[in-house]
């Protein structure tokens, strides 16, 4: 870097580095100034870009006149573009997005279309959630049952049973009797939660020195 600032390297080195994105902030400013002041730097810039383009794709190898024509027409169109001078009133950003070209009565319709679309979106999400939930429950039940541990296995979902803070519980009934099932959810035994609370609260915490047994208990019965 110090060599470069001494100007001992070929002058176009910085331009090349600029194209490759290898210059630091101050060097970028210097290279841009060079590009502005030195026609040969601009020429080098174009040549380097062209080399890069051709290396990437043959289609990009075109004559300079084509580029010039494109640039000229772009400038023309830009100049013809009307300049917006009237300041825009402050509106909520969503509304700006929702009605980019308000011209006539269409506006009224667009107004309610967005919320409706959102409602529809939520409905879809909700349905998908319900469907996946049910699927999840059924699948898991299938998997557990298929494991065939000595007895029937039932997946328990704690959803809808306020006193439980424990997520899923897998119950293996020893006598092979199906446990209480309601709508695919096994009714959580509130007593089990009591045992769990007593076990975790006053037994202390598993592992040494965890801040407190109460902490684990707090987690185990968060919903209570």
């Amino acid at each position, binding site marked *: 870097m110090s060599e470069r600032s001494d100007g001992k390297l070929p002058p176009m080195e910085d331009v090349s580095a600029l194209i490759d994105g290898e210059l630091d902030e101050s060097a970028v400013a210097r290279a841009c100034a060079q590009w502005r002041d030195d026609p040969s730097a601009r020429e080098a810039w174009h040549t380097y870009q062209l080399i890069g383009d051709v290396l990437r794709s043959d289609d990009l190898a075109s004559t300079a006149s084509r580029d010039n024509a494109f640039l000229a027409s772009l400038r023309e169109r830009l100049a013809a573009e009307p300049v917006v001078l009237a300041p825009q009133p402050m509106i909520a950003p969503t509304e700006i997005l929702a009605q980019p070209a308000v011209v006539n009565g269409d506006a009224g319709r667009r107004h309610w279309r967005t919320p409706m679309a959102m409602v529809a979106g939520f409905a879809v999400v909700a349905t998908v959630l319900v469907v996946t939930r049910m699927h999840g429950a059924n699948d898991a039940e299938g998997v557990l049952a298929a494991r065939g541990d000595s007895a029937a296995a039932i997946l328990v979902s*704690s959803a809808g049973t*306020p006193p439980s*803070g*424990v*997520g*899923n*519980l*897998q*119950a*293996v*009934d*020893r*006598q092979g*009797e199906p*446990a209480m099932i309601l709508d695919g959810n096994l009714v959580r035994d509130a*007593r*089990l939660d*009591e*045992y*769990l*609370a*007593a*076990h*975790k*609260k*006053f*037994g*202390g915490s*598993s*592992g*040494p*020195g*965890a*801040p*407190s*047994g*109460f*902490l*684990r208990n*707090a*987690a*185990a019965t*968060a*919903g*209570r």
Partner: protein
Amino acid sequence: MTAIGRGRISWFALFWIAALPVHVAHAQAALNSGDALVERRETKAWLSRIQEAASKRSYQGTVVVSSGSAVASSRITHHCEGRDQFERIDSLDGQARHVVRQNEKVHTVWPQRRVAMVERRDQLSSFPGLLQAGGDRVPDYYELHSAGQERVAGREANVLSLRPKDQHRYGYRLWVDKATGLLLRTEVLGERGGVLESAAFSDVAIGVRPSVDSLLQPIRKLDGFRVLQPVALATRLEKEGWSLSPKVPGFQEVSCVKRSADGPLRAQSPGGGPEPQMVQAVFSDGITYVTVFIEPYSAERHPRAMNTAIGATQTLMHRHADAWITLMGDVPAPTLRLFAEALERRQ
């Protein structure tokens, strides 16, 4: 030439060892030294350091506990002033609940239900004697190894691995704060090395001085609250007509109490005759523990034998003569079965 080169490398290594902070080098070298006596002493030193930091430091942070598929977070503030300890835990998920502990006195407050429960910790168990009593035996049943260093909750931590020496217990991974010894993260590892349960600070400030007033704020105004004071009496299994000498090596009875079989939160009928009593005994190997609940059997209350797993906690429920036995423990299921087999009726 080669001799000189080798000499240079060893001097270089020595330089680095000397440059490391003393305690890090100490921990790494001593724990993995291969000398049984040194490792034994170091294991105890580490555990007591962790234990002491948890009770004597002042800290504040958010702890996330995940057990099985459930995740819950709590805000914890611990403050130590001389001999007095204050602790407040607010559950951040589900219904609001505050646990406020002043030394042995524990308040649990459910502000929405306007219910408060007051308990004394020493009535129900000998904690913190629990771990102190078992601390000496820990090196007989677990091996502690240093497993490098990691960053947890924005702090540098030593990673320790606590491996069981037999099949009867789970392993643990511990992240211990380098500066203070506070446990920043723990994992309970199953038989195949999978994580059964984990608890970690997501953020923590150590050495803060919270005001005791704000700590005790949830229990200042309990007017209009239903205040429950469950009673538990210290007893012995033998006195209640039972005996249990654990077949699992390392486990000892650390507490045994007798209390009402109904949880204190259940509505109790005032004139409903004598309530069924429950005996609750806790066994520990110094790291983990098993709780045995014994209560009179009733067909209505105890519909069926059960065997469940929630996170790292196994549960075994079954009928034993005229009693209903519930075993819970953060141990593999076969260990609980050994406990169940060892339980005997004396009368």
